């Protein structure tokens, strides 16, 4: 079985949409056998990526559009968060723990994404917008865990 369920969303770069995007992606992801803890982690990762698009990508202007895509295949969730904002000149540096271009921020967004998702890829360049692609596979759970316990 290699079914694919697809979701694409686009919304205004308004801060109130961070919470919306978080619960929407979690509601979609809940179709896979994620644990509660997994879903919480996905919510944090999505919040961080969407907040970055709004705050850094669009400099808090509400006129930008944030695109969030989610794909569910048999065993995996992939989430994309994209903006057409100012982009990141040095992606490697941006990914460093506690690096931030804003002295008031903690610079831990990418660290959270990397800790909570299995894989995180960042595509960006100055003036070219940013795309964050993250994926996560449910921990051994449900039927599978039962089967594992039963020694199958």
């Amino acid at each position, binding site marked *: 079985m290699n079914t694919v369920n697809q979701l694409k969303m686009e919304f205004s770069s308004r801060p109130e949409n961070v*919470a*919306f995007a*978080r*619960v929407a992606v*979690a*509601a979609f992801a*809940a*179709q896979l056998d*994620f*644990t*509660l*803890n997994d*879903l*919480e*982690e996905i*919510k*944090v990762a999505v919040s961080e990526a969407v907040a970055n698009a709004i705050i850094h990508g669009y400099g808090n202007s509400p006129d930008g559009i944030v695109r969030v895509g989610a794909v569910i295949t048999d065993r995996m969730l992939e989430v994309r968060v994209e903006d057409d904002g100012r982009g990141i000149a040095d992606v490697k540096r941006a990914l460093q*723990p506690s690096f931030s271009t804003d002295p008031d921020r903690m610079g831990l967004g990418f*660290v*959270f994404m*990397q*800790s*909570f998702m299995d894989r995180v890829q960042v595509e960006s360049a100055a003036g070219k917008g940013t795309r964050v692609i993250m994926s996560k596979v449910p921990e051994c759970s449900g039927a599978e865990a039962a089967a594992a316990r039963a020694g199958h």
Partner: protein
Amino acid sequence: VGEIRRFLRDDSPVKVSRSIKETAYRIQQARERLTGKLGREPAVGEVAAELGIPREEVVTALEAAQSPASIYETLHQ
């Protein structure tokens, strides 16, 4: 990153602290309390403020409470 992950898992404020059903129950209680106090149905923002949770989480908790057998049970805490 592995260590941070462990740290966040063990100590995160995000950690699952309350059951979904309990949150849904607290929402219903807040709703009744506010209805009494305001003399009308409270708006979702008023319920959220009363419980200190985001408006969106009120929505997902109620979905869970309504269809307890559904996948949305796993959605909210």
